[in-house]
């Protein structure tokens, strides 16, 4: 091993490229969706259950915190789908290059943000 290797531990000068950010967010949103599967199943159970079950669900939605959680879960879903579609396009050879990859990442991020904001407007 060489003695004098270039070392950069100054975190303020290390920046993730946009492609890495889009990629790690895809993974994080996937984990979030996995963790919230039981809550979504519970929601389905309540909405398909008796009138009392539905009333419980409605009371939950009345609170700002639970509405925020719902927005968060759906945002993760939106992001995961958008970034996933980018992945599928890349499987077909679209947006794989250095420049086109960055462009694709920007487009995916932009589309996801717009959809998430629109969802927020619809929810509130």
């Amino acid at each position: 091993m060489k003695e004098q290797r270039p070392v950069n531990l100054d975190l303020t000068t290390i920046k993730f490229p946009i492609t890495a950010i889009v990629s790690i967010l895809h993974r994080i949103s996937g984990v979030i969706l996995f963790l919230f599967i039981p809550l979504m199943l519970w929601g389905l159970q309540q909405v398909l259950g008796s009138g009392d079950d539905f009333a419980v669900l409605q009371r939950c939605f009345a609170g700002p915190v639970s509405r925020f959680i719902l927005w968060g879960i759906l945002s993760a879903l939106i992001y995961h789908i958008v970034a996933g579609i980018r992945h599928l396009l890349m499987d077909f050879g679209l947006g794989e290059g250095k420049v086109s990859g960055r462009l694709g990442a920007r487009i995916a991020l932009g589309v996801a943000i717009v959809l998430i904001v629109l969802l927020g407007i619809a929810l509130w």
Partner: protein
Amino acid sequence: MVSNVTSYSGNGLRDWLAQRLSAVVMVAYVVLLAVYFAMHPVAEQTSWQQLFGHVWMKIITVIVLLNLVVHAWIGIWTIFTDYIKPMWLRVCLELAVILVLAGYLVWGIDILWSV
């Protein structure tokens, strides 16, 4: 070819394909739901009960749940393989996730058939 005993199919290419096919199936389901709730009020219980009262919707939803289990397993397996290095810990966590996912599937079927 490297085969892996804990991955979904034990074969990277097959996992890769299964991950994508299951993704497409689930996106189609999300679109189906979005179209339905664009035409029916989402905050009304009857909209949901009407939709999930159909046998075809129950069947479709179970198929989607199966796809979800496969998709989640491939994703979680990849993440565990990337980040959790001690073999014993990884296998324990993998086992836990498999049991949990199997439970979700059974729970989902139970929910659907009690409508």
